[in-house]
C-alpha cells in the first residue's frame, strides 16, 4: 500500500510528519495553489483536500464558511478532482480527499474510488462515515490501493478502539479532543495518555489533529505520535495575511525538512 511505504520512508528522517488541509476552491483554486506551494516549500508530507459540502456538521466555523463560500462560487465535485490531479502531478506530498460521505455516496462507491485514483489521491477521510457503514467502500478502496483513513477519539472505549484498529489502514487520525475543528487543544497529559491508549491497539502511524498551531504542539506530537495535522490555523493565517502570513506561520512551526 502506497501510503504506508511513503510514511515509513519519510519517518526515517523526520518526526513528526506533517499533514495540512485546504478547502477546494476557497478562497479560490488559485489561492489553494499558492497555499500548497508554501506548504510544499516547508516540507509538508500530506495534504487533505476538502471537497466542499453544504452540511459540514463536523467542521468548525472557519471551515464551515469556507465550504459554503466555495459552493456559492460554483465549485463542483468534478472541479475538485481536476484540481487534485493538478496538485498530485506537481507536488511530492501525498494528497488525501477529505469530505463528507454524501459526496461519495451520491457519486457511487466505485466511481468515487476510480476518480480518486485517476486524480492521484492516496486515500480519504470521511468523518461522518462510521466503520460499520464503510466496509464495502473500504474494500473497494484497498483493492485500488487507496487508503481509507479512520478516526480514533477520546470518547471511544477500549473495545471500540480495538474495533477501529482492526478497520484502520495506513494511518490513524487521532482526534485530540471533543468538539469540531478549529478550537485550540491543550496538548496535555490527557492527550499523551490517549495517544498511548491508541498505541495499545494499533501500530499504524498516529496523526494528531484538532487545534495544532505551534512549534510546541509539533514537538509534543513528535514525542507522542507520528503526524501533526494542521487545519484551521493555516487557513486562519492565510485569511489574515495571505502568502506572507502563511509562510510566517509555517516558519514558526520549525517543521523538519524532508
Amino acid at each position, binding site marked *: 500500500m502506497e501510503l504506508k511505504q511513503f510514511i515509513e520512508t519519510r519517518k526515517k528522517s523526520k518526526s513528526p510528519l506533517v499533514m495540512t488541509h485546504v478547502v477546494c476552491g476557497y478562497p479560490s483554486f488559485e489561492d489553494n495553489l499558492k497555499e500548497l506551494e508554501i506548504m510544499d516549500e516547508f516540507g509538508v508530507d500530506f495534504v487533505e483536500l476538502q471537497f*466542499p*459540502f*453544504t*452540511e*459540514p*456538521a*463536523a467542521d*468548525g*466555523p472557519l471551515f*464551515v*464558511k469556507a465550504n*459554503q463560500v466555495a*459552493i456559492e462560487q460554483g465549485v*463542483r*465535485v468534478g472541479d475538485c478532482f481536476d484540481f487534485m490531479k493538478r496538485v498530485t502531478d506537481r507536488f511530492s506530498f501525498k494528497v488525501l480527499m477529505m469530505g*463528507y*460521505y*454524501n*459526496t461519495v*455516496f*451520491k*457519486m457511487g462507491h466505485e466511481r468515487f474510488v476510480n476518480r480518486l485514483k485517476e486524480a492521484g489521491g492516496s486515500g480519504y477521510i470521511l*468523518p*461522518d*462515515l*462510521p466503520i460499520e*457503514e464503510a466496509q464495502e467502500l473500504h474494500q473497494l478502496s484497498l483493492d485500488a490501493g487507496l487508503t481509507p483513513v*479512520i*478516526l*480514533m*477519539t*477520546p*470518547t*471511544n*472505549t477500549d473495545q*471500540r478502539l480495538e474495533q*477501529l484498529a482492526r478497520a484502520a489502514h495506513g494511518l490513524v487520525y487521532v*482526534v485530540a479532543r*471533543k*468538539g*469540531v475543528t478549529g*478550537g485550540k487543544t491543550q496538548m496535555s497529559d490527557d492527550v499523551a495518555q490517549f495517544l498511548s491508549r491508541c498505541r495499545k491497539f494499533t501500530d499504524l502511524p498516529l496523526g494528531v489533529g484538532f487545534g495544532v498551531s505551534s512549534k510546541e504542539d509539533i514537538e509534543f506530537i513528535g514525542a507522542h505520535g507520528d503526524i501533526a495535522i494542521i487545519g484551521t490555523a493555516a487557513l486562519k493565517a492565510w485569511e489574515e495575511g495571505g502568502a506572507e502570513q502563511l509562510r510566517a506561520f509555517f516558519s514558526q512551526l520549525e517543521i523538519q525538512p524532508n
Partner: protein
Amino acid sequence: MDLFDFEEGREGYYGQYGGAFVPEILTSTIEELKSCFKACKEDPGFWDEFEQLMQQYSGRPTPVTYLPNLSKKLGGAQIYVKREDLNHTGSHKINNVMGQGLLAKRLGKPRVIAETGAGQHGFATATMAAKFGFECKIYMGEVDVLRQRPNVFWMENLGAEVIAVKDGQRTLKDAINECMRDWVANMDTTHYVLGTACGPHPFPEIVSYFQSIIGKEANRQIQELAGRLPDRVYACVGGGSNAMGIFQGFLDDDSVELIGCEAGGSGTGIGHHAARLAYPDASVGVAQGYKTFFLQDDDGNMLDTESVAAGLDYIGISPIFPYLQEQGRVRFAAATNDEVTEALRLVMATEGLIPALESTHAFARAIVEAPEMSKDEIILVNQSGRGDKDIFTVADALDDDHWKCFIRNKAVEYGA
C-alpha cells in the same frame, strides 16, 4: 408491522434507509442513549410515567373532533381531526420533548440542546427544560430567528439561550448542523433533543416512540366517536414526527390508507418546494446523520427549499417514510402554498379551528380528496399544531393589510 424490530446487523435501518452516520466521537454517546432508551422501553412503568406526565402537564389525551360543517360543505367523506393543537405549547412537538426530558433525566445530563425551524420544537424544548430544571440552548437559523421572533421571545423568557445560526441557508438544516457541533463538544453533560423522526439512529425510533401516543389515542377515539376505523388518515410531513405519531396507530389496520402531505411550496420545480417523496426531485443520500431521500444536486449538495410552513421546509425526511412508501403503506402527496392558505381560510370559517400552517397541509390534501369519497367514508386529519402562535407568518400568508398597518403603528410606538 413492527418497524423497530430490526434485523440482525441492520439496527436503525428501515429497508435501505436510516442508519447512524455520526462522527466517531459520538459513538459512545449514541450507545449510551440507545441503551438508556432500550431500558426505558422495557421498563413497564416508563410509558405510564410518560403518559401521566403528558396528561397532567400537557392535557393529554387530546380529543378527536368531528367537523360536520366542513364535511357537509365538501359533500364527501366525514372529516375528523386529531387535536394536537390543544397540547401545551401548541403542537405535537411537546410529546417527543417531554419524553426525551425523561430520557435526559435518566441519563443524568443537566443540559439539553435542540435545533428549531419554525420555533415550535425550540419552544417545546425550552418549556421542558424549565420544567425539568435543565440548562437549555436552542439553535435556530438566523433567518428563522428574524421571522419567528415571538417564539424566540418565549424561549428566552422560559430561560433558554437562543443562538442565531449564521451558516448555510441560515434555516433549520443549519441549526441541526450547529446542534451536532455543540453535541460533539459537550456530550458528557448534554442531551441533544432532536425534534423530529430524523437524524441518526436511535432518534427516528425514539421520536416515533414518544409520538406514537397520538396514534394510540386516535385509534381508540375515532372508533368510539365514528364507530369504526377511518378510511384515510392525513398528516403533514416535515421531518415526519407527527405523521409517524398518528400513522403508528393504524399501521396494522390494512383498511386504513395513510397519506403523508408534504410542502408543495410554490409548485413543482427544483428549489420551489420541500416535497421529497411526492415530487420526483429528491434522491437518496446521507446527511445529518442518516440515509434518506434528500433534495440535493448531482454532487450531493443540498438544494434550497421553499414553503409557507417553516416546519415543513426541510431537505430530508424521516428514513422510515421512503421505506413505508416502497412498502405501499403510505401514499405521499404535496399541497402548494396557495392550496394551504385557501384551506386555512376554509377551516377557520367553517369550524372555528386554526391549524398551524404545517398542519394545514394535511387539511389541504383532505379537502382535495374528501369530495371524491362517499358520505359514509371517514377521514382523520392530524392537526399537529395551532396557527395562532404564528400570526406573523399567517398574516403574511394571507397578506392582511390591517395587520401590516397595526405593525407599522406599533413600530412608531417603539420609536421607529
